[in-house]
């Protein structure tokens, strides 16, 4: 299978006056054709920073990138703003978490399609509209011709989310990045979006990077899971191993324990919160919340350990166990 998106030793730094704060550390991630990758973690652990940095969306005066990224096997040149721009939306398209405020309220849906097409192709406005109608219809939107003439504030949240997917698909991107697409819509729409993404993935072999803090959503949709904590991918494994007895990192285990289930047991709560950027110290960032941590963990260099061919973990306790 071909790789659609790959990052290698991908680190992101935030420049602050004289300091250089590391936000994301050496992330190796790959998405193959027709694969759905789940990226999971609490808020503030660097999930959004990750996709924004890969798309080159951050101001280079403030953010510094390290490592390499490939899209469709080609290395992305982060020094060339124009190349980055034409990659965004065409090679890697996003759907965002808040469709209501992501659309410009004073432009029609059709104008959103049109400006996207204009940025990447030389299609005529009519051609674009025809493609848009076709896409909207495929995403089960009724009367797509009329929807195109509507303004975002006239549409429901779920509808806008589907329109976002349609706009993303228009350029047939290598990878579709979904940043918490289900957080701001109600439960039935959440189901709908998830099944729609799954369907797209199965029918059209769309590769998706599904970013969420919702373990259940990730479990139901992904083929492979990355768990992120304080800028580190602490564990990555195929979704079939997402079980309490199979995962190795204490953080993943805690996440799984905190998942609501139909038992009479009281739900254990994962105490504390991820460290703020300014609070991060050397060693394992989870050590402060980890029940198994000891002194040595505070100086651990976060080396990767391979449990099996496709199961990696960054935990001192797992070193040598594999």
């Amino acid at each position, binding site marked *: 299978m071909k790789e659609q998106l790959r990052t290698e030793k991908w680190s992101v730094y935030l420049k602050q006056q004289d300091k250089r704060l590391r936000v994301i550390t050496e992330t190796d991630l790959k998405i193959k054709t027709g694969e759905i990758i789940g990226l999971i973690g609490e808020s503030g652990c660097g999930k959004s920073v990750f996709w924004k940095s890969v798309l080159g969306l951050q101001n280079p005066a403030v953010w510094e990138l390290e490592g390499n990224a490939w899209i469709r096997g080609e290395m992305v040149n982060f020094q060339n703003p124009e190349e980055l721009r034409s990659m965004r939306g065409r090679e890697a398209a*996003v759907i965002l978490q808040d469709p209501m405020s*992501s659309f*410009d*309220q*004073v432009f029609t849906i059709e104008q959103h399609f049109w400006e*996207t097409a204009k*940025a990447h192709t030389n299609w005529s406005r009519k051609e674009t509209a025809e493609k848009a109608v076709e896409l909207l219809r495929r995403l089960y939107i009724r009367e797509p011709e009329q929807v195109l003439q509507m*303004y975002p504030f006239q549409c429901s949240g779920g509808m806008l989310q589907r329109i976002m997917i349609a*706009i993303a698909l228009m350029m047939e991107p290598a990878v579709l990045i979904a940043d918490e697409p289900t957080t701001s819509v109600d439960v039935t729409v959440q189901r709908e979006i998830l099944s729609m993404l799954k369907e797209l993935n199965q029918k059209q072999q769309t590769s998706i990077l599904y970013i969420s803090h919702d373990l259940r959503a990730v479990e139901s949709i992904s083929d492979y899971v990355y768990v992120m904590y304080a800028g580190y991918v602490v564990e990555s494994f195929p979704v079939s191993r997402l079980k309490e007895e199979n995962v190795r990192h204490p953080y993943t285990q805690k996440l799984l324990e905190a998942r609501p289930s139909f038992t009479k047991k009281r739900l254990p709560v994962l105490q504390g919160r991820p460290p703020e950027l300014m609070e991060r110290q050397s060693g394992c960032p989870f050590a402060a919340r980890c029940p198994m941590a000891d002194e040595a963990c505070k100086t651990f260099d976060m080396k990767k350990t391979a449990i099996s061919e496709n199961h990696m973990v960054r935990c001192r306790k797992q070193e040598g166990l594999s």
Partner: protein
Amino acid sequence: MRKYIIKQILMIIPTLLIVSIVAFGMIRMLPADAVETYMLANHLEMTDENIAMVEEKFGLHEPVVTQYFSWVSAVLHLDFGESYTSNQEVADMLWKAFKATAQLAGAAMLWIVVLTPVLGIFSAKKPNGWMDGFTRMFCLMGTAIPTFVLGFFMIRLFGVQLKILPVSGKESWMNYIMPSFALSLAHISSFVQMLRNEMLENKKGAFTLYANARGIKEGVVFRTHILKNSMLPVVNTVGISIGRLIAGTVVIENVFSWPGLGQLITKAILARDYPVIQAYILLIAIVFICANLIADLLSAWVDPRIRLGEKG
């Protein structure tokens, strides 16, 4: 859209009614008697005969309600009576002055419409750059400098020392430059600050992120999304400011001896020329109502959320 306009126009009627009652009642409740003022102004002797004559002339012997209605019907026929001081028709005086003021306000509006976007865009494009610094300085000065001080300094510099601009009169377009700029400066300052804040806010907005993430060119994102969304609230405020411009000419007209409403009303207040004051109140009220209406229509025209109603 049509429904919206009709609704807006219908809302005017009660406001006008209240203003007319206030304007009418104000003169009726005067601490200084209108009859007395008239007689003093016309050098009439205080005899019973003369008082009766003046009362007859103003219709003061009739019941208040009748007086109000006959006053309203006169006003509807654009008859505001005669000025106490000059014995001219108030309607004529007011109309002439209004035209002069409207021209001045129009010229000021031109400054606003041209300078606000230019300064706002320059300053928001590179926050904390030198253009931004200049604009913020300009705005601070603009809000702090009294209009008459600005006017006199301009007259001294351009009119007396450099001799490139005429200092009074309104014959050519050159005459408009100084008074209209002095009039518009405070407005421009506040609009530029508003536009700048809106733009900086919208730059961080979710729709800007989404547009960038779709690979739309930075310049296009700025011109279409950021600029348009930032302009919407400013457009409404600028519309409303039409009324403020016309009412705010009082000081500047006295500085540049501009024969407009501002000079007229200052003289009228000092001479207690009540028919003029009364008519002025009505006129200003109408100007304000119209300005607000224009502002609303302008907003509805540019903002689909107002035009179509949120969640249509």
